[in-house]
């Protein structure tokens, strides 16, 4: 798999990780959905919480904390985290712009949107701006073909994109101090 990149395995200079009280209480709610003997089922939902608590990416510390919480081996977390495309294994910008590139969006102009964001921010898909503000990702079908082209930033879908809409979104996000997470309500 192309996106099964090697996780960031060093711990030098990487901040330690601990769940906040709020996050732990949400983890307990999630654990309550599965029979106690199958608590590993909570792994993916809890990884989403860990990622949101760790500046949008899963460090080794964060993954180990999830393993300890679920009482499973570290490798069981690593093998899952490396499989799914929503888990970032390296630090990302404050606002991750995930632009759909699959055919239905391509037919409605997603190539131009990706190229425009790339040149405006001076990065290639997969890259992060030097100020740590934006990461650009080209991703596969997000189920928004009827409202294409589109991008996802955190939990929010931005649809019917035009170059002008993208420009004003970037300016708006630049002024937002808070990170956009998938888990945002």
């Amino acid at each position: 798999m192309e996106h099964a990149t090697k996780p960031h395995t060093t711990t030098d200079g990487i901040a330690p990780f601990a769940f906040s009280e709020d996050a732990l209480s949400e983890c307990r709610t999630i654990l309550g959905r599965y029979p106690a003997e199958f608590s590993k089922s909570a792994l993916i939902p809890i990884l989403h919480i860990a990622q949101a608590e760790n500046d949008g990416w899963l460090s080794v510390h964060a993954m180990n904390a999830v393993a300890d919480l679920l009482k499973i081996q570290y490798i069981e977390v690593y093998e899952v985290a490396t499989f799914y495309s929503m888990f970032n294994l390296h630090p990302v910008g404050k606002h991750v712009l995930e632009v759909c590139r699959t055919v239905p969006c391509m037919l409605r102009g997603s190539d131009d949107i990706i190229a425009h964001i790339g040149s405006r921010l001076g990065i290639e898909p997969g890259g992060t701006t030097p100020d740590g503000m934006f990461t650009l990702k080209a991703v596969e079908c997000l189920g928004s073909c009827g409202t294409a082209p589109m991008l996802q930033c955190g939990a929010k879908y931005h649809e019917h994109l035009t170059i002008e809409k993208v420009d004003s979104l970037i300016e708006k996000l630049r002024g937002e101090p808070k990170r956009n997470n998938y888990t945002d309500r």
Partner: protein
Amino acid sequence: MGRQLLLEHIDKPGIRGLEAYRANGGYRSVEKALRTMSPEAVLEEVKKSGLRGRGGAGFPAGMKWSFLAKPEGVPRYLVVNADESEPGTFKDRYLMERIPHLLIEGIIPSCFAMGANTSYIYIRGEYFHIARILEQAIAEAYAAGWLGKNILGSGFDLDVFVHMGAGAYICGEETALLESLEGKRGNPRIKPPFPAVKGLWQRPTVVNNVETICAVVPIVNEGGEEYAKIGVGRSTGTKLISAGGHVNRPGVYEIELGIPVEEFLMSDEYCGGVSGGRPLKACIPGGSSVPILPAELLFRTAKFETRLMTYESLSDGGFQTGSMLGSGGFYVFNDTACIVRSTWNHSRFYHHESCGQCSPCREGTGWMEKILYRFEHGLARTDDIDLLWDVQRRIEGNTICPFGDAAAWPVAASIRHFRHEFEYHATHPTKVKDPKHCEKEPIPVPERSYAG
């Protein structure tokens, strides 16, 4: 517009909430099933309806339910497949986002029929905002007594939970979905045993698509025979179609199975014609995994019969001259679209999404992507077409799950119907380096006939 069994109330104000949903007749099927029917009677209605799985495979839902093993003292589960990720498909999202209670309502008589007391809705991670809508609707349903212990005093208990995925197309395959729900990588399982015998946590499980479960509501309300009166032959009832690509009115439409494809594409009630006032080049009628149909084969079959929106008519002619209804992801290409570029894009998708378990798929999808990259970027030779054909043919049928077929079919169909575009790319390397070359100068179509 035909009958709207699922979308009738979708534009009513406040329909996302329980109050408006109930005021428009919501949860009647639960009252009917739990108060007046036995579990066997509900199953019988679903069988009579002829309802086929709406996720893409089209397997009869009633038959799937009847395979469910019922060992004493072992819990059974209904897992709703909301991992909608087939490119071109966005109908389940539309239902869950706009009218979430319809799905929750459908789950209740379905679980009642199966004797399942727990249901998980496995939703793709990118739909986090929709998961929140579902969670809110579930909380409303618990508070009103539609979920929980002893629903309507019937003695039937049911818990429903939303489970988040994290971005993996393969988790739409039911056994990969179950692996993922167990907290593992989404590697499909070898079948048998089927999920109906050993599914979630090795317990009997039915996995059904969102739209399939929603369709149980009108089936219980009106009866299976009424539902089966809509449609043609073994394609009964209504189906949601996601229309996208080069159409004037993209969106989700509920059709009565059996309307002509031409009506669906050209009528202002539905797609409203091909966008840009351009000629139609091709259409993928059932999501990215089904064969592409050239314009000549879309409205009429090779036998010159009217092509209908049904499972049978869309597959008429087999893969030589037909396609499939699949998930109903209907996307259209006008003459500014380059088939080589689209095929490369699809193969990049399948390479990206292969779970890597079976060698033919893991390696073959990568090879196909590389060869198609060369075509798209003016680096291929004409005989690379045969090489590409050879690679795709060695994937099909040689993998644990249907993903390998789904990766191979679009490539095979593109070569079958648009070989001239591949030849053009091999012989016009400078022109095709411009990704918009088809917008500037459409590729000439050779004289051809599909007759017979």
